[in-house]
């Protein structure tokens, strides 16, 4: 339960940063926070009470006392994808700073409908 609260607040805080903040790097930080929140939420969904990690490292472990492995493997993928998106975003931020010498989104915006 607590995990859900934490994850949902992380997602909302991150979305708030993306929507409201004016600084490009702050926006990228917001995206990273949203990603973390999603990952936490998914892992929390896969948790089973009094179970252990899905690794059969010794004979005494049985399959019915283990947490759900699927969310874990999906989150692994999601974390790596999040890193890739962050890297590309930061590359673009550096490129934009190189052109405009500012990180303020209001001063950068030139394209309009």
């Amino acid at each position, binding site marked *: 339960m607590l995990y859900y609260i934490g994850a949902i607040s*992380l997602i909302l805080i991150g979305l708030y940063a993306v929507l409201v903040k004016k600084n490009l790097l702050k926006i990228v930080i917001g995206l990273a926070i949203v990603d973390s929140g999603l990952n*936490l939420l998914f*892992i929390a969904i896969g948790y089973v009470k009094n179970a252990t*990690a899905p690794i059969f490292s010794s004979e005494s472990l049985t399959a019915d006392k283990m947490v759900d492995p699927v969310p874990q493997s999906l989150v692994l993928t999601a974390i790596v994808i999040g890193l890739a998106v962050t890297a590309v975003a930061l590359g673009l931020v550096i490129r934009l*700073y190189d052109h405009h010498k500012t990180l303020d989104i209001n001063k950068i915006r030139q394209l309009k409908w």
Partner: protein
Amino acid sequence: MDWMAFLVSGLVLILIISAVFSIMQKDLLVAVIGTAAISVVLSILFYLLQAPDVALTEAAIGAALSTIIFLIAIKKTDRFEE
């Protein structure tokens, strides 16, 4: 498992505080430190949720690499938000 609930509530509190803190900060270096703290706490939470694989990934990517590329980006741009 009462101690677990206690620990988790403390960690979730820290998580939310550091998230709010890192988006409110004007100094971007400090904001990045905040995200690093979020990664630290998330790592412990994944560990408590019996997901060592994910905790390892979060440690490798969240605590180190992601923080580092943010730092490089700050270095190449502005540190302070006007």
